[in-house]
């Protein structure tokens, strides 16, 4: 039993628990897999990673549509990106840093549980605030564009700008909801710990950050 447990732990540490190769022998715990926290942690990690794979497919479809639509027709007029997007990008990058600060576990000096808790909630709140700031910034960019007479239906380039930013914004809003959920849910009665939930929310958050960098590059360089 003891041996099986260490095996299980090793499995988690060596990157099991992902969509990476599942253990060929089926994992090797005691058969009652589901309620154990290790298995739950692995399952939730797999679930989030698979969700991200589906999101990649969704945005890749839009990207390929973008490229195809741009290559067709003569009505494509490059949309000048609002300057505020650069600022928004910095805000989102900063939020990725704060979320890492929030869940950092190893520090030079050992912290008490309260101090760690305090640091977590401080940086976690900062991340949520930055996330909201980013969305507000995106709305501001929309207003700048519409003030310049560029609307959803004006031309294909502006259509894609609104579609891509809106789709990303919705996903990021989901991320903010996840951060709030991690902060406020009672994790005592849950199948996973708050720590795991925070890890997974952070994974999603970084992914949204990277996705924005990709979309911004597409909209700027692929104009």
């Amino acid at each position: 039993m003891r041996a099986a447990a260490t095996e299980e732990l090793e499995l988690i540490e060596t990157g099991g628990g992902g969509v990476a190769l599942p253990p060929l022998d089926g994992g090797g715990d005691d058969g009652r897999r589901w309620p154990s926290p290790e298995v739950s942690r692995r399952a939730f990690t797999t679930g989030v990673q698979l969700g991200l794979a589906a999101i990649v497919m969704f945005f890749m479809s839009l990207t390929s549509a973008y490229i195809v639509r741009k290559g067709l027709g003569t009505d494509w007029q490059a949309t000048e990106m609002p300057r505020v997007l650069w600022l928004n990008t910095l805000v989102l990058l900063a939020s990725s840093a704060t979320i890492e600060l929030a869940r950092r576990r190893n520090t030079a000096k050992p912290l008490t549980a309260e101090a760690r808790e305090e640091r977590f909630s401080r940086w976690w709140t900062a991340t949520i605030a930055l996330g909201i700031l980013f969305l507000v910034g995106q709305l501001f960019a929309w207003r700048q564009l519409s003030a310049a007479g560029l609307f959803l239906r004006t031309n294909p380039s502006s259509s894609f700008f609104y579609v891509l930013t809106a789709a990303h914004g919705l996903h990021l809003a989901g991320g903010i909801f996840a951060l709030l959920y991690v902060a406020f849910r009672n994790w005592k009665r849950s199948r996973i710990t708050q720590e795991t939930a925070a890890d997974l929310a952070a994974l999603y958050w970084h992914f949204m950050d990277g996705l924005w960098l990709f979309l911004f590059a597409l909209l700027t360089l692929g104009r």
Partner: protein
Amino acid sequence: MATHAGAGVHAHTAPTGFLWKYIFSLDHKVIGIQYYFLALFSVFVGMALSLLMRFHLVWPAAKVPFIAGGIMKPEQYLALVTMHGTIMVFMVLTTAPQSGFGNYFLPIEIGAEDMAFPVLNMLSFWTTFVSLVVILAAFFVEGGAPIGGWTSYPPLSAVGDVAGPGQGAGQTLWVIGLAIFCLASLIGALNFITTTVDLRCKGMSLMRMPLTVWAWLVTAILGLLAFGVLLAACGLLLLDRLAGTSFFIPGGLVFTDTVLTSHDGGSPLLWQHLFWFFGHPEVYIAILPGMGVTSHVLSNFSRKPVFGYKAMVGAICAIGFLGFCVWGHHMFVSGMSPYSAFAFSLLTMTIGVPSAIKTFNWLGTLWGGKITFTCAMLFALGFVSLFVTGGLSGLFLAQPTLDLYFHDTFFVVAHFHFVMGVAAIFGIFAGTYFWFPKMFGRMLNEGIGKVHFWLTFVGVYCIFMPMHFLGMVGRPRRYADLTGVNFLAPLHNVEFFISIAAFITIGAQFIFLYNFIHSLGWGKKAEENPWRATTLEWTIPSPPPFDNFAGRHVQVYRGPYEFSVPGAPQDFIPQDEAPVEVHGVHNEGKT
């Protein structure tokens, strides 16, 4: 940290109230049955639509019940075509074999207590339900159901009701309904994969999973990667319809006497690419679970292990992978470059290789077996037959030169109804006759079941085989009425024959319905393992308790199809039976 886990945190306990036990249940078994009944309802709706179509094709001037105005107008026929395809593909072929049986049996067959995310599972079903309601609602709005076919090609699907009566509100509901269905399927796929990857019991290695589980896993992967693409496409189509964008709508379109000036520069082909990038994997989403069930059932009733188990696993994965590389073969007539067409053609015919491996291995499984012709077995054999018949016409259609001629004829109708439609339906029937005792605790009547099988089997061949010939002659598809067309006039008898065969086959499904309902209430009580099968669902009571194994720690010691093992006391060994000889001692020493 690892050892004290599990005792305190029980994920969920059996609910008591009716609402939480049967409606918003978190139990994968109840959800599986909910999906099954949703599909059962939908299949009868879809069948009723095809009945009206077959009636109209033979008696175009006759009055038809349920049709506004009595005599069917061409656009009403097209609405039937659209809704028949949509309901059958999404609500039946995608739902029953994967979400229905998969939900019920995947966790049990891998020794898990439930799906990885029970709440998501429940949400996934109810989202599907909402999507069905939204799609059916299209019948009841102004203009009626959409008329653009289940593929809803723009520009006709994108410009609103100038394109026809159903293309207004009806088409909008169709797009929204489909988008909701995409969300439901994504959630479901995520749950299936996670469950298979992370919740297998001790000893259930990948190469010990039943082929049904392999099929459900690969199907879920296809769903996860494909439905996001359809979702994106539906989103863009909706914007074209409602927000005035031009993703799919080209400029200068003329409808009767008006030129459409509000749109410009969009590409209908873009929709086709996005749609078929989803649509081709969708074909395998419909058929793969049926392949899994067929392997399972053939092995069981031949009392032989599946021939070439590893090759079967490889073939399932290869079919899944290749399914993503061939979407262009739906677009040979779209004016694509012959070089692209050649590449798609070659890749498409490559799918013949894993398909042939599967067929060869099914025959190998049967070879020399002690075959009993139960209803489940008959339907599995029917599946093989239909799959081969439908697959062979696929080789014709995979060639661009032939497809140019066949594409818009009944040859294609015959092809996809054989290979994707009725083959998958036979997979569902095989699963139903095989698993009904486990799901409902009672046996289906085998005698009535055999009548049902023979009428259906002969019936579908009588319906769809002649359609090949109609297609070769050049009978186009999607036309409401061709009675005045001279070169098709000699074929009226064939049409008549097909319609009569269709009426009889549809009638035969009521035999099944009677059997189903009657057996639910008054069937013979099922034992734990009536088919003398090996996989884990047959080691627990029928129907299974709430947490499947009643707290038992399942462990698996062997492969899924150990039939007729030399020297064994009986002709099957359940997966969880520990080896009695040297290995057993070794195992005991460990615990």
